[in-house]
Each structure stands twice: as structure tokens, then as C-alpha cells.
């Protein structure tokens, strides 16, 4: 029995030591990409990379925005990834705390100016989402603006996201502040939160989930997700609000690992921007670079841009405004 135990112990030690050392060599050759992007964007990036000779030379691992945000902040330069794609203002914060990204070595001719260490892969828009069946069953008038969502007839039928937990809600707040100023925004937002009641969601995809499940009739979320649902034949529709479809960008950045930096990561980042944008535009129809146009029929009704740069500080200010309205 004792012998058996010793053998077991030996086997265990052996397994552990292989586990510890096993993953050294192969990891160095492959570029690890961490991304918070949706399926469609990941596919577009994969197509761009595979079509340009990088097939099998990278691994993409996707995360939720909040988890990836946590990883960037906690691990800094020690992160496994060589390259990330992520909501831009998270990249700003991560760079500020950890100084973890390299300056990009390629030019991209973006329409806007961005920091030297990232460049956008997509611009994502906010829109009002409807469950057409629920709207009909409950005789609800279709809203045309975000302001409409504060009307009492939508009480109990509305779901929005909390800007404290997800930046998707920021698109709604940006729209309101741009159109009505901060004071009136507070009044409208108070009405919206009152109507949403139990359905103020933590996750950006929460409202769409509730709309799909038939728990609510109206939600506010990412436009491209509603477009996809409608195309898939669900009783889901979307409204481009009168205040405008505001946007947040997701960008690509390359981790600075000093001597251990994988040069191929920078090349792949360039490849995604140079070769992936065409396919990305089909799902996220907002031109970001010179010479781009939205595919016919896909463009949103009313694209708008917030007047100030979208920094973490601005977000914090808007969070505080939102907390006052709860």
C-alpha cells in the first residue's frame, strides 16, 4: 500500500512538472490575440489574417468586455496576449495605469486622430430595439426618439443598461446630453429609469436578451446586434433615434513585451486594419478610415459623434449624472 502511495505521488509530481514546463516552446511562435469583439468581427479578423498567410500562426481568445478589462488592468504587460482588440477607452485607461502598449509602427489614415498605440477596428452604434410582437400585443406606439422612452406608456415595458456597469449605456447618455443638455437629460433619464424598473441591466447585451425573451417590448442596445436578430427572423426591429446613433470604437493594440515582443503581432494588427475593414464595414457600417463608405442599405439613419473626446474621465462624470437619476 505504501509503495502504491509513493508511486502515486511520483506520478503526480511528474504530471505537475510537465504541466509547468510543457507550454514553453509552441507559445512563442504563435501570436495570442485577446478580443472582446462579437462573432462577426472575430470572423472578419480571422478571414483577413488567414487570407494573408497567417493561418495557424495565431490564436484568438474572446472575452466579455468586463473580464478583458479586468485582465488588462490586473496583468498589465504580463498578459498572455501579444495583441488585443478592445473598447478604446479601456485601452486608454490600461495604458495610463500600466504603460503596456507599443506605439503602432504603421499608418492607417484614420478620419479622426487616435493615440499612437491603438487604431479602431470597428465603430459600434446604439439604437432603440423593439420586440414587434410585444409592441403589437400591448398596443404600444413605436418610439422615435430616446426621449420618448421616458413616456409613462412604456412603464414596465422598457429595458436599458446601467452606465455604471456597461459602456453600451453611454451611447444613450451621450445622445441625450448632445440633444438636450445635462439638466434636461437628468429629467429624461429619471423617467427612463423609472420605466425600466426591474430591467436596468448590468450587461450591454442585457436589454436585447430581455427583448428577445419577451420580458420587455422596448430596449436600448447595440444596433448591429438588433440588425442580426431581425435578419435571423426574430420578432425584433430597431429604430434609429432622432437624437442620433452615437458610436463607441473598438481598437487594436499591441502589447509591449520588451525583448520578448512578437514582431508578427504588429504585422497582424496592420493586416487586420488593411484587409479586414471591408468585411467589418458590412456589420458595423460606420466609416473610420479615409476612402471608406458604408455598404448600401446598411448605414444607420442618423450617425452622430459626441463633441468631446470619449475618455474615462468623461464617462465617470456621466456615471455620476446617471446615479443621480436613479
Amino acid at each position, binding site marked *: 500500500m505504501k509503495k502504491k502511495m509513493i508511486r502515486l505521488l511520483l506520478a503526480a509530481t511528474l504530471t505537475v512538472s510537465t504541466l*509547468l514546463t510543457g507550454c514553453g516552446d509552441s507559445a512563442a511562435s504563435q501570436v495570442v490575440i485577446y478580443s472582446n469583439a462579437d462573432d462577426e468581427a472575430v470572423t472578419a479578423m480571422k478571414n483577413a489574417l488567414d487570407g494573408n498567410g497567417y493561418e495557424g500562426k495565431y490564436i484568438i*481568445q474572446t472575452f466579455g468586455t468586463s*473580464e478583458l478589462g479586468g485582465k488588462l488592468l490586473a496583468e498589465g504587460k504580463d498578459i498572455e496576449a501579444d495583441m488585443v482588440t478592445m473598447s478604446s477607452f479601456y485601452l486608454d485607461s490600461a495604458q495610463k495605469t500600466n504603460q503596456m502598449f507599443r506605439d503602432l509602427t504603421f499608418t492607417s489614415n484614420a478620419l479622426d486622430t487616435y493615440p499612437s498605440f491603438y487604431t479602431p477596428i470597428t465603430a459600434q452604434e446604439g439604437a432603440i430595439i423593439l420586440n414587434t410582437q410585444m409592441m403589437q400585443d400591448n398596443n404600444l406606439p413605436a418610439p422615435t426618439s430616446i426621449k420618448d422612452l421616458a413616456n409613462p406608456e412604456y412603464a414596465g415595458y422598457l429595458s436599458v443598461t446601467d452606465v455604471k456597469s456597461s459602456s453600451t449605456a453611454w451611447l444613450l447618455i451621450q445622445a441625450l446630453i448632445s440633444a438636450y443638455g445635462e439638466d434636461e437629460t437628468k429629467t429624461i433619464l429619471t423617467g427612463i429609469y423609472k420605466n425600466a424598473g426591474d*430591467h436596468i441591466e448590468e450587461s450591454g447585451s442585457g436589454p436585447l436578451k430581455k427583448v428577445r425573451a419577451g420580458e420587455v417590448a422596448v430596449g436600448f442596445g447595440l444596433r448591429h446586434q438588433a440588425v442580426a436578430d431581425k435578419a435571423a427572423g426574430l420578432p425584433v426591429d430597431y429604430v434609429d433615434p432622432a437624437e442620433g446613433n452615437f458610436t463607441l470604437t473598438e481598437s487594436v493594440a499591441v502589447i509591449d513585451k520588451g525583448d520578448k515582443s512578437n514582431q508578427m503581432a504588429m504585422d497582424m494588427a496592420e493586416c487586420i486594419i488593411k484587409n479586414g475593414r471591408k468585411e467589418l464595414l458590412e456589420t458595423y457600417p460606420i466609416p473610420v478610415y479615409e476612402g471608406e463608405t458604408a455598404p448600401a442599405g446598411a448605414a444607420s439613419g442618423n450617425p452622430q459623434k459626441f463633441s468631446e473626446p470619449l475618455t474615462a474621465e468623461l464617462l465617470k462624470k456621466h*456615471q455620476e449624472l446617471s446615479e443621480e437619476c436613479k
Partner: protein
Amino acid sequence: MKKSKNIELKIIFIGILLFFLTFFLLPLLSVIQKSVVDSEGVTLSHFAEVLQGGSFLQALGNSLLISAFSAVVTTVLAFILAYSIQYTNMNGTLKKFIRTATILPMFLPTITYGFAIIYSFGKEGLLTKLFGRQLFHLYGFNGLLLGYVIYTLPISFMLLQNTMHYIDKKFTVVSRIMGDSVIRCFFTSVVRPMLGTFAASFIQCFFLCFTDFGIPASVGGKFEVVAGVLYNEMLGSIPDFNNGAVVAIIMLLPSVVSITMLKILEKYNIRYNKVSEIELKKSKLRDMGFSVLSIVILTCILSVFAVIFVIPFVEEWPYRTTFTMAHIRQVLSDSALLSVYGNSIYVSILTAVIGSAVVYGAALITARSTLSVKCKQIIEGIALVTNTIPGMVLGIAFMLSFKGTPIQNGFIIIIVCNLVHFFSTPYLMMKSSLEKMNVSWETTARLMGDSWFKTIVRVVTPNAYTTILEIFSYYFVNAMVTISAIIFIAGAKTMVITTKIKELQYYNKFNDVFVLSLLILLTNIVVKGMIQFLANRKSNNKTKKEES
């Protein structure tokens, strides 16, 4: 003499201590450090900021209330189910069904719970449609209670049923012969020996509810809980680890109370020389009553999960309900799936093997050693505090502590994290079963000339065999379904199947989420079945030996 007697246990103790110092205290310290440090040095400003944050105290109060209430409800329900199995003569098949069905929810990732509740009791829910109306207001207290009870019932049931199994049923007979009334007999021979376990069950359930984020995220509504505040601070749109750490540390406070509570109840624990099987008194009424109660409880729980078996097989619930195998085919054709599934199995098996060994060692120290009270208290403390750390915090703490080390992004860190995360419940099960065994076995064996090691192998282990198998499967199943901590520490090559589920959840692909959930469920049932088979074979052998 006394010194040499405990040498093996001392080595085990030191090993366990080192393990938890490295993989629990160190990460915990990194969290504590975050809570009191800013760019200028040591500060209490994060505490001030969080406590002045208006809704924090309200959320904390809400959490204490709902968690305590859920823990009581769960423990009572679990007691009814466990009592039905151990103290009634109800039909054997029914007993088997109770045993399996009660722990079924544990085989599924908790990510599915909130969604299952909405798709059962929501406006378009399966049960709402069956009954023609919404049964109750779903969001807030009711929804949380339902979710928490389903979530914690398996654990409470396992704890209670495990202890009850080791209670000598003859005491019931003795009590009755001595002329005790039915009620008095029930209290002296069943409730009293169970007091410690009741407290353990209450505490386990309380903290599971207190620290869970998934269920409130789905059905919490306006009823804000502290886990939601934690999430907003740690992983919200502006992640702030300092404030998050403050919330996490305040969440540890209730565990201090619980350590005291368990200590007080310690003295009620009773040891038995042997566990004797007796013929229970015949009572049709009792058997019928408990059968009906058990069936009602389980029907309520299983009906919530019915949607998980329906949704993957229809086109688009609830709008197009034609049967299809497309979702199943689509998910299973994903080439990456096989490798993450393989990773999951690998991680779960290693977690179960190493975990069972660690738990067994730890329980031997507290339940069957003469090591000092201090040593025992340390282990008890570890067991309770590991249970009070939300998975999210554990994951982030592991990232902070082990970044840049060779174990980062490897399998070993996932396995170790699982060991720590799920240490508490199996430890309590193991401890209470070892405690119920006669304390003098080791001494007797020593007098007969056996070494301590031999006694453990020949006498104690065979008697604890069922529990060891239970804790093995507990670790396996939990490693299979867990997500909250490992999402942060799994690397691109060590991703497990639940991280895939999390991805799909972000894209609202619930058809696919449920397909994978079913795959996990199936795996867990198969493993559990295999373990059950082993347990039965063992007990058959035992009876055969005794007969010959």
C-alpha cells in the same frame, strides 16, 4: 512518545498550511493591499468612498437578508429530502430518484439558472404558458429566493444527508424505549446530533448566495445586492480594483461571525462507535407524507430546468417552436470545442484527485488528530474563509499575485484555484463523517502494533469510502461547471468549456449555451454514475466479506 505519534499528521498539516499560504493567503493579501493603498501610500479613502456611496449599505443589508432567508429555506427543504431517504421506508426507486434529482442542478453551470428562471416564469415562459398566467412577480426578492434555493439545495442536501448517514439509528429506538415522545425522540436522536451540520449548511448556503453574482444579474431587478456592487466596482465600465477590494473585504466580515457560531456548536457533535442499520418502524402515514413532500419540492425545482431540455431542440424559443437538431449539430461541429472539452475533463479529473487528497488530509487533522487546537482552528478558518471569497475576487486576486510567474496561463493555476475555491463544502463533509467515527480506532490499532498510516488505510479510509467518493465527484462536478474565477486565469490554450459558454452568453446565443450545458450535464451524470457504481461495488464486497 507523543511526538512521534503525530509525525505524519504534522507533515500533512505543514503541507496543507504551505499550500494555503501560497495559494490563498498570498492572493488574499493582494486584495487587502489594494483596498488600503493608492498612489500616495496607505489610505482609508477607498473605504470612505465606498461607504459613502449611498446604495452600498442598502445593498449590504439586502444581501444579508435574502442570503439568510434563502439559507434557512434551503436547509429546511434539504432536511426534508435527506430525512425521507434516511428515516423512512419509502419505495427504494423513489429514494434513488430523490438522491439524483436533488443534486441535478449542481451539474449545470450557474450561468444557466437566471436564464432558466426567466424562460420558465417570465412573460413568455414555459410555465407561464402552461398555467396561462405569470405565477408571481419574478424580479427582486422572489426571483432571487427561487434562484438561490435551487442553487444551494444540492449542497445543503449533500451535507445533511452525509451526516445523517453516519448517525446511529439505534439511538432512535433507545429513545423510544426509554419512553420519549415522538417529538422528543426526534429532537434528541435526529436534530441534536445534526446541529453542527445544520449550522454548516446554513453557513455554506448563506455565503454561496451572498457571493453569487449570476442570479441577481438575471432576476435581481431593483433589489440591489452587494455582489452587484462588487461587480460594478471591479468590472464595471470603469474598473476600480481599489474600491472593489474594499467591497470584497467587507464581504468577508460575516465569515468571522460564522466561525464563532460553528465553534459554539462544536460541542454538540456526537461520535458513534458504529453505524448500525436498523429496521425503521413501519409507518405508512410518515412514508406517504414524506414521499409527497419530496416529490412536490423536486417537481418545483426540475420544472425550472425543463426549458434547458426544450430550447436546444426547437428553432427559436419562444417564437418558432418546431423541432430541430440544427443547434446541436452546429455546436458540436465546432472544431475548437473538442479541445476545450478535453481541457475541461483534464482539469476536472486533476482537481478531483488532488482536491480529495487535500480535503482528506485536512479533515484527518481536525477530526482525528491530537494536534493542538490552534492547528485545528487554522484549518477551520481556512475552510470558512475560502467559502466567503466570491469567485470573481479569487480570480482577480490570482491574476494580481501570479502574473509573470511560470504558472500563469497554465493548467496548474486553474486546478489550484478550483481546489481553493471549492475547499469548504467537501472539507465539511469529510470532517463530519470522520468525526462520527469512533475516536479510539487509532489508539487501539497502535496498541495492536499498526502504524498510523496503516490504520488510516485499513480502518478509517474504508469507513469513509462513500464520503471520499462523494467529495471526489463534488470537486469534479464543480470544476466542470465553474466559471467566475477561472475566466480570469485560463490562458488561450487552457480554456475550458464554461469559458466558451460565457462567450456565447455575451452574444445572447442561448440555444448554444444550453447545448453546451447539456453536454456538461451529461458528462457529470456519467461520471457520477461511474462513481456510484464503484461505491456500490465496494459496499457489495463488504457485505459479502461479512457474510463469509
